[in-house]
């Protein structure tokens, strides 16, 4: 298996295969010895003689569409999202960031939770920073502000509705 991995500012070609019962890893573009051990989500990766312990898991909602899969990795007390791109498939992952229509702004939930209050109505003109709705998550209420000045074009959630992270909440028509 060969993938292009993007992690922070790094972009690397990684190949993984089974060889005589062991998993072998090669790192193109780096003249480095790679050794791996561990199983499942807890891995040990030795690079240039230095061992790094890593906890790795698939990012929720990363479904492999367009040949891209994302993983979150906790390593040495820091965390990074790794995007693995299948070089054999077109549609590079960067294309995933679909552009929204000119002049409209989509406000999405950054966390899962439950809508407790909708503060605006369709057609309302709002200033940047004005509260649009309130989402409760883990016992805290969070007011979701308008990222810029505009007119509320549509509201997709009602009070009491549960929302997933990334769910579309409100569409603003920017002015």
């Amino acid at each position, binding site marked *: *298996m060969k993938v292009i991995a993007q*992690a*922070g500012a790094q972009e690397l070609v990684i190949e*993984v295969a089974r060889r005589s019962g*062991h998993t*072998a890893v090669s790192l193109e573009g780096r003249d480095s010895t790679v050794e*791996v051990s561990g199983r499942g989500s807890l891995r040990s990766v030795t690079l240039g003689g230095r061992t790094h312990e*890593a906890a790795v898991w698939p990012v929720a909602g990363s479904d492999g569409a367009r040949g891209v899969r994302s993983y979150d990795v906790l390593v040495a007390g820091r965390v990074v999202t*790794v995007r*693995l791109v299948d070089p054999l498939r077109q549609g590079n992952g960067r294309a995933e960031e679909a552009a929204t229509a000119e002049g409209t702004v989509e406000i999405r939930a950054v966390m899962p939770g439950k809508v407790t209050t909708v503060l605006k109505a369709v057609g309302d003109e709002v200033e940047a920073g004005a509260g649009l709705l309130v989402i409760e998550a883990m016992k805290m209420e969070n007011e979701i502000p308008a990222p810029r000045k505009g007119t509320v074009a549509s509201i997709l959630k009602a009070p009491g509705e549960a929302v997933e992270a990334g769910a579309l909440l409100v569409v603003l028509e920017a002015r």
Partner: protein
Amino acid sequence: MIRRILIANRGEIALRVVRACRDLGISPVVAHSDVDRDSLPVRLADAGVAIGPAPARSSYLDRQAVIAAAKTSGCDAVHPGYGFLSENPEFAQAVERAGLVFIGPPASAMHAVGDKVEARRLMSKAGVPIIPGLEERSADGEAIAAFARRAGYPILIKAAAGGGGKGMRVVRSEAELQPAVRLARSEAKGAFGDDGVYAEKLLEGVRHVEIQVIADAHGNAVHLGERECSLQRRHQKLVEEAPSLAVTPDLRRRMGELALLAVRASGYRNAGTVEFLLDREGNPWFMEVNARLQVEHPVTELVTGIDLVRAQIEVASGRPLSFRQEDISPCGWAIECRILAEDPASGFHPCPGRVTALRLPAGPGVRVDTALQAGDEISLHYDAMIAKLLAWGRDRDEAIRRMRRALLEFQVAGIRTTIPFHVELMGREDFAAGRFDIAWVDRTLPDLTSKLEADGDGAVAAAIAAALMAFERSGAGAAAGRPAPGLSPWAEAGRRAQMSGRLPKGWA
């Protein structure tokens, strides 16, 4: 004599009480919601009793269900932990009326200190210095606006019925006032079932320093020194320590005496905490009494050697305290980091989900209070705190070093947590020097959270770990022993090369 305790809580604090019960030869029973059935505290208790579905309002906050669970399972006492029903005097009263011992302060004392406005009046009368604020709980936003105009902005809106930062808002101008009152009221209602709020002058450049107290039914009351809790994000404590760099032995004695004044004024019994703000001149100002065990009680346990939950149970059993004021002499330094299922790199947004793998830190000076097990689902229904990581050292420097080591050992897969934030914090010079006040974290947050992403070799190792997982989840990874021609230069993995030639140049 208490023989069987119903623990009306969940997570690490339920487990903490289970352990205290075991130490005392008392049978622990854990009341649990449906989703917590397989949780560690339930498994380690003698029995679990289901009290309702996941939402706290239908289970952990359902007084009738909790009391019925205690009666049905043959308990003679109830420990409420913190949060949920722990500071609800009606619950405490209902427990006692059902013929059970409530392990906490008497309802009357809880009442006296539980309403923040009443408490301020009481403390002021008892001679404890209070922060200028509204003398009565406000029915509407107008009284708050009037107070703000009188005292000057910034002001702080607080829930009259609760603590822990819930329903608390800073207001810096009249324009912000009414939305803030609305939100605080709504949060207070959600958290404490009471939407009463009041206002105080916001003191700036101050520290949050609190005193742990415990009193028995025989007139003995002891304070166990202070906890430094200034490291807060939006009024939520993130890191606590004991002792505080800002507290001299003389100030410790004075604050301890003030805290005991508060205990006596309210007829307090059992464990409690008197919270103060400490201004730049070292003057303590009474904030509130938390009529329960605090989340951060273990830092006090680590420096005093006193088991606070054991002491709570003994006091509730009617026994006198097993230690006196002169037995308490804090030794060494303890720090607690609250590990939350929140992503510090994205504004601390909640990260519920399944913990797929877990490696808890250990070693000298390290204590982890957690109910987390690999496979657990972190639910949106409850608080985001998944673990309390504690480090003790002979001095503050040793405690910080051990905390840093433990944070780096702590591995959690499946959800993002605040571990990277704490790693960054422990490395900060301002933290090492004790240069912070209660606004420091909020002020420094953009900088504190700008370096949480792995880079360099860490990012490369992360990329490899991700590729390995992707490989194993693909068909290719499952089939073993298949030759992989044409791939080079292969490093043989799963087996280290013998030492010679294994280590690359430039290594030393």
